[in-house]
């Protein structure tokens, strides 16, 4: 094992409000020029009935104190670029290249207003256009919108396209159901519900693939579409995908591809060729853009030509040697974002795409699959663990192990394995998802982790399992090297103790 010792920095950092001292400033906005101040008196400007009476209760802190405060807090956090392996299944926590950040800070981009005359933003429009072209090639789609700001936002946009398609064909009131496998991401049913659809769940087979008989039993004239991740959340590529698409299409439904797992297949196979009609891709997963502690992401949606006329407006077009925004789409579902989506994130994705090139993207996918299988093979026979659903089949970019036996034998659960990983300075895998695996450990190492990091991860999981059988109490102690140990999550949600703001905290303390 690589020799490293982890102890997370802990400043017991006060809340920013607790650092306040009256009269201090952390930043001076410029004052209006003297000539302006002589001419314009603000007090006369603002009508009394809508003037703010008491200043906001913001803290008053000097610049350096604010900087230190947030740097301290950053040190009490964990990132893929500053930590070690970050094998969160379904999240594709690959290296976030620094050059992309440097380029995304270019003032030509950061200082561009979305309503500027298109002639003044040709550079931005050009890269967006080129990103879209690359995206179409990777996904095998005919057209796309870059507007959705996140994966779930993309899912819902795609669902809205499906809805518009059926309404346009006069079947809007009839086609009310979206089929979702039981292994799907929680966002799938939630997005379909926001699109006004009823959710029909289909079970997986013991091989972890869609149960075709069950699917046939639920499709019909009421079917609007099917949402599927392939490879699925078990990390298994569903080889029956062409048949699934045929069943759904024959019933008049459309096929939705959840691109959360696209990292397994770039340049190897394409959703468009598998029979999917609409896809979203998480640029903050497959295309290396950082997740920022929960966002901003970007979830562009691609579709086949039959759905193109429903895409959100505007579209970025190239005509007569110029890039422009086109609103000429009378059947569009409208807008899903105030402007054009998370453009700054898209620039990072574009830089990544051309850094890798066609061969590099393909190699990235291949190595992500190699890394996941390496971990799966080395851990599946560890005492207490198993690889449910067709263990003989290769996994794709992620693998879902089960700690069910470990839990039954020793009382040490998947949760505890995760916390032991944290104590080693590695991030935990996703746990308890997908729901169809008991005590799930969903591992997605990504292609940017060296074999040494994979071996370290494997060793910590194995040692934790061994410890569980020899000294379970010790295995249950983790985490102890993180800022805090186990937290009282019930207290946070209890009506008597719930506290969601500083003002509430002051109130509770006063009581």
């Amino acid at each position: 094992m690589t020799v490293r010792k982890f102890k997370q920095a802990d400043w017991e950092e006060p809340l920013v409000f607790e650092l306040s001292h009256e009269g201090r400033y952390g930043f001076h906005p410029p004052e209006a020029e003297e000539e302006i101040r002589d001419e314009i008196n603000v007090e006369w400007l603002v009508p009394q009935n809508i003037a703010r009476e008491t200043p906001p209760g913001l803290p008053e802190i000097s610049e350096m104190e604010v900087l230190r405060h947030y740097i301290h807090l950053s040190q009490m956090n964990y990132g893929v670029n500053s930590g070690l392996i970050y094998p969160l299944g379904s999240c594709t926590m690959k290296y976030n290249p620094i050059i992309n950040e440097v380029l995304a800070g270019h003032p030509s981009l950061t200082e561009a207003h979305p309503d500027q005359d298109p002639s003044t933003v040709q550079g931005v429009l050009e890269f967006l256009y080129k990103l879209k072209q690359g995206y179409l090639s990777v996904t095998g789609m005919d057209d796309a919108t870059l507007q959705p700001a996140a994966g779930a936002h993309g899912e819902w946009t795609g669902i809205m396209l499906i809805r518009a398609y059926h309404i346009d064909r006069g079947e809007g009131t009839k086609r009310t159901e979206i089929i979702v496998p039981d292994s799907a991401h929680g966002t799938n049913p939630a997005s379909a519900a926001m699109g006004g659809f009823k959710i029909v769940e289909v079970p997986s087979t013991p091989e972890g693939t869609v149960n075709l008989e069950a699917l046939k039993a639920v499709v019909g004239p009421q079917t609007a579409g099917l949402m599927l991740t392939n490879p699925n959340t078990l990390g298994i590529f569903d080889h029956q995908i062409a048949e699934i698409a045929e069943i759904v299409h024959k019933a008049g439904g459309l096929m939705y591809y959840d691109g959360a797992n696209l990292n397994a297949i770039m340049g190897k196979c394409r959703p468009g060729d598998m029979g999917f009609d609409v896809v979203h891709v998480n640029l903050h997963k497959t295309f290396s853009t950082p997740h920022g502690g929960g966002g901003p992401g970007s979830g562009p949606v691609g579709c086949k030509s039959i759905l193109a006329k429903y895409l959100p407006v505007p579209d970025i077009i190239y005509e007569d040697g110029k890039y422009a925004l086109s609103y000429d789409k009378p059947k569009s579902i409208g807008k899903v974002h105030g402007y054009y989506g998370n453009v700054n994130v898209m620039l990072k994705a574009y830089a990544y795409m051309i850094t890798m090139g066609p061969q590099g993207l393909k190699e990235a996918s291949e190595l992500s699959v190699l890394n996941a299988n390496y971990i799966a093979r080395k851990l599946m026979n560890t005492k207490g663990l198993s690889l449910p659903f067709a263990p003989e089949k290769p996994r794709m970019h992620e693998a879902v192990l089960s700690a069910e036996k470990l839990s039954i034998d020793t009382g040490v659960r998947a949760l505890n394995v995760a916390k032991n990983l944290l104590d080693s300075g590695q991030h935990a895998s996703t746990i308890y998802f997908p729901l169809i695996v008991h005590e799930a450990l969903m591992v997605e190492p990504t292609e940017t982790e060296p074999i040494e990091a994979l071996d370290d991860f494997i060793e910590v999981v194995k040692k934790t399992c061994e410890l569980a059988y020899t000294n379970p109490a010790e295995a249950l102690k983790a985490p102890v090297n993180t800022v805090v140990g186990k937290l009282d999550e019930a207290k946070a949600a209890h009506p008597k103790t719930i506290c969601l703001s500083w003002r509430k905290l002051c109130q509770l303390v006063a009581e």
Partner: protein
Amino acid sequence: MNRAHPYLPNSVPEIKEKMLEDIGVTTIDDLYVNVPEKLRFKGELKVPGPYTELEVKKLVSDTLEKNTHLKCAPFLGGGVWPHYVPSVVDEVVHRAEFLTSYTPYQPEISQGMLQSIFEYQSLICELVDMAVANASMYDWSSALGESALLASRLNHKETILVPSFISPARLAVLKTYTGPAGLKIEKVNHNPESGMMDLEDLKAKVDDETAAVYVETPSYLGFAEENVQAIGEITHEKKALYITGVDPISLGLLSTPGSYGADVVVGEGQPLGNHMSFGGPLLGIFACNHDNAIIRQMPGRIIGVTEAIADKRRAFVMTLQTREQHIRREKATSNICSNEALCSVASATYLSLLGPNGLKDLAETCTSRAHYAIRRINELESVKTPVFNSYHFKEFTVKYSKKKAADVNKVLLSNGYQGGKPLRGEFPELGESALFCITEMHTKKDIDGMVATLKEATQ
């Protein structure tokens, strides 16, 4: 040259072979056996590259630099505004531990992000004077869409009343969000003099079917809505939800949604320390009053205070998660998962730097300079600003009687100024008008220079 890619440590041939051997296969393609032969992609992806970092830096910079270099910040607002981002904010959001972390699902190792977002929520509560704010929505528009859905879930009514000068982009997103739920969006007329909501028309339209009344202040056209209190009272009489949309910078000077009885506040957090970046990422503000029923219907993540079990130390966790998609699936209050967390960290840093006085100073600078510009522009012939006789904060309409707004902008642009947004397409009744915005980014010299060109352009 066949070199291992800098991002791909296991592409070294010996490593790859060892790993394949350990797995028990001979080639990588053996791992893709489940992909049917006929579905395999045989061509080459149509993607430029590969390029080295040096080449990427030059290529992308060259592309971006095709943008026009303007003399000063664009005179544009409407939902994204040119405001200065202090250097400390950029430093904080570039910290790898924040930037490259995932959603804080493992709270013990993510206290830094959890506390930062809790601080963001708390700072927003102070700014808008509400009890609870969530961790963020995608932007103002999506926050508005979600607020309408929340209202309807809460009171099972179906009409959302909106001002006649609502931002067209926000209205478009609102319609997309509420379409599947069958909500009706209806506009309330405005007073022809002031532009503000016509209270008589509001009284006539608000009824037992009204789920919510939505007001923007300052409005899309820049004027402050002075009847916010009365609108709230009329709304509440019919037991509808009162939703207000705000530009947070204006709250350095203008009264708070909490003070005039708003139930839900939405708004755009971009001006609080986030770059414009051609319109994204943005930061959807979403806050509500202390009504427990509303809180339990909130969309998105919320961070709360708790304590460590062992030593009772104060700590932070994501809470009320039973509202969310990963637990509740199709019964969740929203499908939102990834949000704009890093933008909320930027805004927390920004609000901490400015403090109450800095925010007021900033709001004063914006509004003083805007009114200076209004005066200078009004001195021009064939030009009138603003169209409505009300107090405008930092944005205002400029109406041209001789020229087309688009043509005026062409002349401005040829002199290095990006003029206001032409409004004919969005509000034909305003004629040849444009929506201008002035912030602390525009100096007196910038304003004088622009107005001198405007004089030339409008004659």
